[in-house]
């Protein structure tokens, strides 16, 4: 799956330049949100989604993970899908995590 299919026409170098700028902007956006907005579940979801997108851009455009064999590609893709989901869920529903990780409650 390609997130920006129209960019396929660009040369490899130009694609790298483009995604570098996007990654920098996403980092500045996440930092701005963190410093200015009141903490909420919505902010947690936005930050986790931004993290997943940034990870995907680094894997696809910088690492060249699309060229790797499917077994490796999907293992590493899943890292940046499962981890942000787990982070969001554990912050939104901490009681459940406490319940399953408490010894002798």
């Amino acid at each position, binding site marked *: 799956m390609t997130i920006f299919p129209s960019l396929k026409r660009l040369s490899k170098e130009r694609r790298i330049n483009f995604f570098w700028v996007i*990654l920098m902007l996403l980092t500045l956006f996440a930092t701005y949100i963190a410093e200015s907005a009141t903490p909420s579940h919505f902010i947690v979801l936005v930050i986790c989604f931004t*993290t997943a997108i940034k990870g995907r851009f680094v*894997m696809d455009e*910088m690492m060249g993970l699309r*060229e790797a*064999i499917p077994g490796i590609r999907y293992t590493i893709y899943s*890292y*940046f899908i499962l981890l942000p989901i787990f*982070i969001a869920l554990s912050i939104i529903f901490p009681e459940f995590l*406490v319940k399953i990780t408490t010894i002798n409650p």
Partner: protein
Amino acid sequence: MNTATMPTDAQALNTSPPDSAELHKIKYGIGNFAIWFLIIIELSEFAFFFIVFLIGKAHYPEIFYQGPPQLNTMAAMLNTLLLITGSFCVARAVAAIRRDDRKHAVFFLWLTFFMGFSYCIIKIWEYQWNIEAGFDSSSNYFFGIYYYLTFNHFVHVLMGMSVILWVTIGLHMGHYNSKHHATLESGGLYWHMIDLVWLVIFPLLYVLR
């Protein structure tokens, strides 16, 4: 059977057995078994630390809520920008060597090393800033995990810089070209892994409350 995919006699006669670089490309696409194994192990190790952090956060919400505002977010943001730029430079170096442009490949590899070095300087300054503010690894659970995670990542950056230095020297010595650059590519993959881990550390420790 689809006859369009079958080689003609002439093609079959002209086909020489693939060399090791070609076999390697067929088997893994990019990188090799050793580097992918290492990357998956390293990512799993950090995933374990992230889970420990989240469990701590769930059990001690007050301490972990107060933690991020006590950290130097500006230093962390600068380090994120440096590591992303480092990844960009490695990607450009690999793209350059694939078209036999050694001059640009060397330039971008040295730039990557410089990004790593700058990261280390900012991280040391951040630790100094924390200590002056009265926060060390024994301050509370948040700072305990913060120091453990960030110092572990710092050590990985140092290893990544060594790898980048190694492949840069190799490139200076003419070891890589457009056909044979698997080691350079693997060194680059290791650097990207370090960047990927930081992309999770930054929001987890400094941003999310």
